[in-house]
C-alpha cells in the first residue's frame, strides 16, 4: 500500500488480464438490425437477383436487348444524365441565389424547395399535366412527349443539388471572393476559379443523387408521358409493363440492370467523397 513520500510497493498476487472484446449486447443489436434489414430489404432484393439469374445470362441478354426494353433503358439513362446535368447548373444557381441574395419572400421560396420531397409523385405528375398538358395554361401541350418526361424528372430531382450545395456555400467565406476581386478578377472568373472548386464535391454529390432518383422514377412520369413504347416509355414503366404481362423474370432482369447502375453510381459517389475529403486534410 502507498504511504506518504514513497512510491507504492508491488502487491504479490498475480493479475488476470481481461481482454477487451465486442460486447454480447452489441452482437445482439447487430443481429436484430440485420434481421429487420433482411426481411424488409435484402431478401426481397435477393429474390429479384435470383429470379433474374435463373434465366441464365443468355436469356437475360435477350430480354434486356429486346427493342422495347433497350429503348426504355436508353431513354432512362439519357434523360437521367440530362436531368443530372441540368440540375447541376440550375441547382447551383438556385442555391447561390438563396444563400447570397435577398428578396421579399425568400424564406418561402427556400421552404418550397423541399416540396418535391413531400409531394407524392403521382400528384406531381398530375400538377405538371394540369399546366403543360391538354388544356394547359400556356396553351402548350407537352403530354406524350419526351419533354414531358424531362419535366417530371426535373420536378422530382429539384431539391438534390440545391440542398447539397447550400450548406457548403453558407460556410464559404466571402472574404475569399473579395480577395480575388481585389486582385482584378471579375464576377464569373472569381466564381469559376475560387468558388466552384469548393462547391464541386457538393454539386457532384447532388447530381449523382439526382441521377439515381431519376433513373427509378415512376409515379410522376406515368400520367404525363403516356408511356408510349419507343417514345416516352422509361425503364421503370417498362418493368411495370413486364410485371403486368406476367413476365416477372424479364422484369427482374431489367430491374437488376437498373439496380446495378444506381448502386454503381452511389458507390462511386461515396468513394469520390471519401477521396475528396482526404484532400482537405
Amino acid at each position: 500500500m502507498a504511504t506518504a513520500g514513497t512510491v507504492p510497493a508491488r502487491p504479490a498476487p498475480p493479475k488476470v488480464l481481461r481482454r477487451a472484446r465486442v460486447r454480447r449486447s452489441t452482437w445482439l443489436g447487430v443481429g436484430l438490425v440485420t434481421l429487420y434489414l433482411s426481411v424488409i430489404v435484402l431478401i426481397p432484393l435477393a429474390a429479384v437477383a435470383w429470379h433474374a439469374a435463373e434465366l441464365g445470362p443468355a436469356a437475360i441478354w435477350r430480354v434486356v436487348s429486346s427493342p422495347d426494353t433497350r429503348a426504355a433503358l436508353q431513354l432512362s439513362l439519357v434523360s437521367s444524365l440530362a436531368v443530372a446535368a441540368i440540375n447541376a447548373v440550375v441547382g447551383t444557381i438556385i442555391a447561390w441565389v438563396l444563400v447570397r441574395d435577398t428578396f421579399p419572400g425568400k424564406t418561402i421560396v427556400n421552404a418550397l424547395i423541399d416540396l418535391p420531397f413531400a409531394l407524392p409523385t403521382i400528384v406531381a405528375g398530375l400538377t405538371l399535366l394540369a399546366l403543360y398538358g391538354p388544356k394547359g395554361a400556356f396553351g402548350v401541350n407537352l403530354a406524350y412527349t419526351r419533354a414531358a418526361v424531362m419535366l417530371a424528372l426535373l420536378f422530382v430531382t429539384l431539391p438534390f443539388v440545391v440542398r447539397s450545395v447550400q450548406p457548403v456555400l453558407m460556410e464559404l467565406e466571402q472574404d475569399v471572393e473579395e480577395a480575388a476581386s481585389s486582385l482584378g478578377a471579375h464576377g464569373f472568373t472569381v466564381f469559376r476559379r475560387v468558388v466552384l472548386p469548393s462547391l464541386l464535391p457538393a454539386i457532384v454529390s447532388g447530381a449523382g443523387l439526382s441521377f439515381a432518383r431519376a433513373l427509378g422514377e415512376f409515379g410522376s412520369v406515368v400520367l404525363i408521358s403516356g408511356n408510349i413504347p419507343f417514345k416516352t416509355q422509361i425503364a421503370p414503366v417498362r418493368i411495370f409493363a413486364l410485371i403486368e404481362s406476367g413476365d416477372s423474370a424479364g422484369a427482374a432482369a431489367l430491374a437488376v440492370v437498373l439496380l446495378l447502375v444506381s448502386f454503381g453510381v452511389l458507390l462511386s459517389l461515396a468513394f469520390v467523397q471519401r477521396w475528396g475529403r482526404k484532400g482537405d486534410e
Partner: protein
Amino acid sequence: MTISAIGITKRFGDFVALDDVTLEVTGGELTALLGPSGSGKSTLLRVIAGLEHADAGEVIISGEDATGRPARERGVGFVFQHYAAFKHMTVRDNVAFGLSIRHRPKAEIARRVDELLHLVQLKGLAERYPSQLSGGQRQRMALARALAAEPKVLLLDEPFGALDARVRKELRAWLRRLHEKMHVTTVFVTHDQEEAMEVADRIVIMNEGRIEQIGPPRDLYEKPGNEFVMSFLGPVNKLGDVLVRPHDVELLLEPNGASTEALIHRITYLGFEVRVELELPNGRKLWAQTTRESAAPLEPGTTVHVRPRATRTFDGDGAEMRPAGDSPWWDRRVTMEVHHG
C-alpha cells in the same frame, strides 16, 4: 470511505495508460491526481468510478470489492470537465436527477435540492437552463448534482479545466471550503500543479501510467523523490545532473564560500518577482528568482556572485546522490558512479 486501487493496468490498443498502479486514498481527505497529459490520471479516476474497465487489478470502495460493479452501483459522484449538464432540464431538475430516479418523495427531493442549491450558491437560478448559466455556475450545478445522491466518494475530472483563469482560482478556493464543510472523500484530477498544491491534502504525482510520488504538497515540494517530480512541481535549473530551484540561487555582491562569478544577461521585472538570467563561467545558463530589493543593485552585462542555498541530485533510480570528487556544484560532469538498486 477509503478507496483502494490495486494493481490497475489499462491499455488502449498499444498505448499503456496505466501500468500496475496501486493507490490508497484515505477517507475524508482531498486527494489530487497530478500529472501531464497522458500520465493516466484521468484514466485512473474513471477506473475508480467504473466508467472504464481495467484490464487487470481491483478497485475496493469502503471495504467492498467494486471491481465488477457498474458505475451506478459504486456510490460515486462524478464531475466532468465539460459539465455534462442535462441540457434539456432545468438546474433544479438536473440537481434532483439522482434522487428522482430513486423515486424519492417529491417533498424530500425539493427540500434537498434547495439545500444544495443554497450550498453551491445557485439559489435563484433553479428554473434556468444550463445554457443560460456561465461555465462556473454550470460546474457548481454539476457538483450539487453529484452531491445530491449522497455519494461515498466524490471524483472530479479536471473540473476547472474549461473555465477561464480568474473563475478557476475562485472555484479552487471554493472547492476547498466546501470540502472542509462536507468532508466527503474527494479525488480530483488536474494538470495544474499550483491548483493541486493549493487545494489538496495529499498529491499523487503520475507520469506515463505510473505513480511517481505521493505526499502532502509541502513534502513533495521540499523533498522530491526524483527529477520528474521536482521539475513538475516548480521551475528548476538543470546543471548537469544538479538541480537548483531558481529561488534557491543566492545573488551576492562579494564571493562567499562555494560561490562563483556569473554574467548577467537579462533582468525581467514581473511585478512581485524579478527574474535574473545568468551565464556561468563554463557557458551553462541558469536563472534566479529574487525580490526587487535584492535585484536593485544589479545591471545586465555586469557580473554577480551566485551560490545555491540548496541543490538536489538524483541517480537513475531517483535516489539522491552525494556529490563525489572535487568538482564544483556548477560544473558537475554528467556521468557519475550510480548505484543500481
